[in-house]
């Protein structure tokens, strides 16, 4: 594929998405609540695609295909533990968030914590940590696009150009109409992702098996655990933050405010399940299939695992390579725009409004938009430094957010605890995660993420037991 054709394909995708984003403006009411949560007016289709597309990202198309190619079937277990954890947690937590949004009009997940724990400082701490923690995750999306563009175009579209395209599109689609433009473009992108994924898998299977018989025996240790990569310790370490992803990552928690009814919310969870299970199997199968073709000698040996999908794209016919590239861009953009929209709402509501403004709606939205721009710049700078593997960056983000898990669970399930319990748990867990990440430490051979959640939970419970509880009966009754 030459650079002109690649740029043309990307331009068509951007034009179509921007048209959809622009058309969605007619749903937007001029208030902060509607810009960030749709005022709770999403139907099942919009809510489902928005949740799925925000969750499933370049991490899947680039990171997970590469991880299953290099490390084997453990990748499937890793992602399916996330899938099951999400269904489990949403069953209990989603209806509570939805009711609270209806009743109190919360627009950011941190705002809910501030209310429950009786202090705006809790929301501020959670917001500051989320701002830091989600930069690696957003960056991993941008890197995914850049790798795919480089691979699909044979290097004709340079890394830097692809990074800029991804950031500008995410910025544009989140600013046009907030959650409405993000949601409707998520539907568009979610459909592209699934169609392209199926087409790429079918093509790879037919192309490969025409040349060499797929022999699962040649995959050896990639078909079981434990193997060199998926030791039990590493499996626990990687799945733990992933299991709690649905309640610790604000961009997906905020999606729980959007459905228009309880029925739409149940539909959202169900269709997310259908999409997620199918998509997970699809990308892991693709990675294992390509690993088998490498063993059969028809697919190159890929040492850098994030290059597996880009290499495949570079070998495909023009139309499919283009579709695959557009799907990677769609997967990335649908996640980045969701993240920056949510983080901007937290900055506007839990920092600016809570401490600085006097309830001025216009100023709040302006601060939110400024935050979107600043975040986009930070992510661009971080992405251009090519900081690491996509999966590793994504897991790092979730590790840093993991200390919020006991605070969120305790928020609904336990009537003890106030601002000191919540804040100290989040801060101590975050500090533990950062220290162990920097030192590459697993004290006593126990995975670092287990330590993180143990530290956060222990601090939370210990402080909550001595602190006067901030009980708000109206909050608990929803």
């Amino acid at each position: 594929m030459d650079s002109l054709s690649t740029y043309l394909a990307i331009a068509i995708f951007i034009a179509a998405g921007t048209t959809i984003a622009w058309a969605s403006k007619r749903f937007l009411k001029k208030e902060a609540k509607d810009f960030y949560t749709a005022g709770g007016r999403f139907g099942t289709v919009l809510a489902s695609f928005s949740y799925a597309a925000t969750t499933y990202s370049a991490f899947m198309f680039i990171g997970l295909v590469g991880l299953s190619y290099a490390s084997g079937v453990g990748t499937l277990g890793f992602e399916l533990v996330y899938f099951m954890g999400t269904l489990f947690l949403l069953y209990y937590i989603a209806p509570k968030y939805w009711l609270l949004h209806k009743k109190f009009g919360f627009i950011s997940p941190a705002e809910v914590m501030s209310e429950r724990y009786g202090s705006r400082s809790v929301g501020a701490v959670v917001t500051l940590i989320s701002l830091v923690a989600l930069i690696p995750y957003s960056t991993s999306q941008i890197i995914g696009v850049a790798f795919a563009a480089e691979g699909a175009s044979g290097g004709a579209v340079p890394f830097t150009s692809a990074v800029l395209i991804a950031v500008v599109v995410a910025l544009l689609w989140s600013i046009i109409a907030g959650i409405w433009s993000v949601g409707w473009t998520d539907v568009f992108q979610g459909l592209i992702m699934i169609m392209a994924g199926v087409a790429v898998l079918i093509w790879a299977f037919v192309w490969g098996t025409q040349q060499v018989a797929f022999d699962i025996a040649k995959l050896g240790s990639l078909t079981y655990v434990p193997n060199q990569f998926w030791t039990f310790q590493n499996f626990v370490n990687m799945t733990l933050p992933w299991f709690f992803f649905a309640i610790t990552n604000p961009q997906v928690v905020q999606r729980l405010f959007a459905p228009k009814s309880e029925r739409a919310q149940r539909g959202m969870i169900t269709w997310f399940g259908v999409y997620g299970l199918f998509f997970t199997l699809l990308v892991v199968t693709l990675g294992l299939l390509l690993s088998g073709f490498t063993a059969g000698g028809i697919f190159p040996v890929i040492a850098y695992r994030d290059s597996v999908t880009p290499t495949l794209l570079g070998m495909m016919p023009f139309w499919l390579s283009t579709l695959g590239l557009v799907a990677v861009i769609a997967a990335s953009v649908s996640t980045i725009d969701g993240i920056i929209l949510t983080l901007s709402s937290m900055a506007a509501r839990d920092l600016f409004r809570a401490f600085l403004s006097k309830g001025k709606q216009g100023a709040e939205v302006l601060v939110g938009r400024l935050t979107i721009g600043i975040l986009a710049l930070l992510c661009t700078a971080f992405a251009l430094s090519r900081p690491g593997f996509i999966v590793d960056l994504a897991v790092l983000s979730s590790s840093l957010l993991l200390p919020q898990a006991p605070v969120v669970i305790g928020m609904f399930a336990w009537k003890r605890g106030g601002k000191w319990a919540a804040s100290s748990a989040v801060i101590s867990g975050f500090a533990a995660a950062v220290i162990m990440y920097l030192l590459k430490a697993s004290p006593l051979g126990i995975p670092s993420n287990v330590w993180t959640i143990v530290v956060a939970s222990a601090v939370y419970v210990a402080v909550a037991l001595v602190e006067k509880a901030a009980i708000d009966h109206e909050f608990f009754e929803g």
Partner: protein
Amino acid sequence: MKRAFFIISIIFVAMMYIVPYTWLSGRAGIETFAFWTLTAAAYFVIAFLFLRRL
């Protein structure tokens, strides 16, 4: 209902960790892939049924 779903969930999630690393440990072939897929699919069906009665 909520307690039943909690217990079932804990059992299914525990199986995701324990079975592949004990019973299926080191067994080459499709078994681990099939086990994880079928367990997650079965859990999804159960979650769907519980959600309908929520």
